[in-house]
């Protein structure tokens, strides 16, 4: 478990995967942050995805996935490395906060800092990359303030709600990572956490 200020990153549970992913994938469509790839998905399909992922390990599947849980025990999404290329020491990040009420409160940023630190300091990766679509301005802002740089813009690389959208690729080299502590200070996460959990206790 990786312990942050607003959230902890914890192992996936099958129950969560089945129930929460079912809820998130079948949310109102405005909440979907996938690359436009969406359709109503059944529990059986999700169960199959879980199975495939579990079997994938035997075939060399290199992904590392965590659930994001707030300090008071609410699971709000997931984050991790969808794929790690250990030869080139590059990891591909992916994240999803399915609970709209937890957008913009620093939860995703806190989780991102934990995963980046884990990837650089424990997995000894030297580069991280991630993709998002042009529409997802919130994700772009988040990763930019954590040190990621825009490296590529694939034109019309996805179709969302009937419109062609660019796909963006971001990258960060280990030397560019300001460090988790520095970013916690810079982004005021400690204050956000104090405020958030003080209100909770009242």
């Amino acid at each position, binding site marked *: 478990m990786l312990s942050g200020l607003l959230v902890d990153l914890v192992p996936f549970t099958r129950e969560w995967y089945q129930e929460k992913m079912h809820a998130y994938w079948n949310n109102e469509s405005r909440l979907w942050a996938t690359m436009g*790839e969406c359709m109503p998905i059944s529990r059986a399909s999700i169960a199959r995805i879980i199975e495939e992922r579990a079997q994938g390990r035997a075939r060399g599947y290199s992904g590392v996935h965590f659930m994001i849980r707030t300090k008071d025990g609410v699971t709000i999404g997931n984050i991790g490395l969808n794929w790690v290329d250990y*030869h*080139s020491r590059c990891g591909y990040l992916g994240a999803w906060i399915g609970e709209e009420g937890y957008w913009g409160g620093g939860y995703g940023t806190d989780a991102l800092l934990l995963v980046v630190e884990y990837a650089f300091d424990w997995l000894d990766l030297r*580069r991280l990359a991630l993709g998002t679509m042009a529409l997802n301005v919130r994700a772009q802002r988040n990763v930019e303030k954590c040190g990621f740089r825009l490296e*590529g813009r*694939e034109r*019309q*690389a996805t*179709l969302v709600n009937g419109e062609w959208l660019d796909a963006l690729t971001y990258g960060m080299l280990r030397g560019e990572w300001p460090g988790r502590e520095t970013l916690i200070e810079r982004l005021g996460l400690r204050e956000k956490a104090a405020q958030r959990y003080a209100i909770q206790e009242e």
Partner: protein
Amino acid sequence: MLEGTLVDLVPFEDDFAIYLETWMNEEAWFRAHVWERREPHTEDDVKKYIENMEKNERGGLIGFQAKNGDPIGALIFDHEWTRVRKAEVRVVVGDSRYEGADEALDGLLMLVRYCFETRNLHRLDAVALPFHETWIEHLRRAGFVHEGTLRQHIRWDGDYVDLEMFGLLQSEWPGYVQKVAELSLQPSDIEPKPKPEKKEQKEAQPS
């Protein structure tokens, strides 16, 4: 057979399958696939690769040869994404004498033609190692647009090197005929290589 200007597209079998056992272990293959680990491909690996590409519903492996029938290499499209109508393209110039030649460019143009004019794809992706200048030049001449640089993305020969990203939209493609007219392709008149030796078929031993 799909007839191009300097090359023709043919099924990937016979001589191509024999050549592939060499090609898949050579620089052109590793570079085109950004295959940084370059583990050796055994005969079985090569056979399995061809089989897999035959069964691949999201991609294809096509042979391309000079007008005199000399096999040049492989045209590959893969990871076709139905919803977005895009795919990745690569050209393996197996016979290194054709590296940078207009035959290799025509191979790329014919692959683009097939993807846009037959498969009706919307977008093609291509990647290039920054030092693979002949490929980058061919991508540019074909009309591909440089869309980004993934910094130090690949471990390559003791170093970490960038990966260049390119893309081409169907709307930017003037059509093969017009494109070829713009480019005035020149044949390189390379002598055809001797035919590879056919492998002896192992006869079934009576038990």
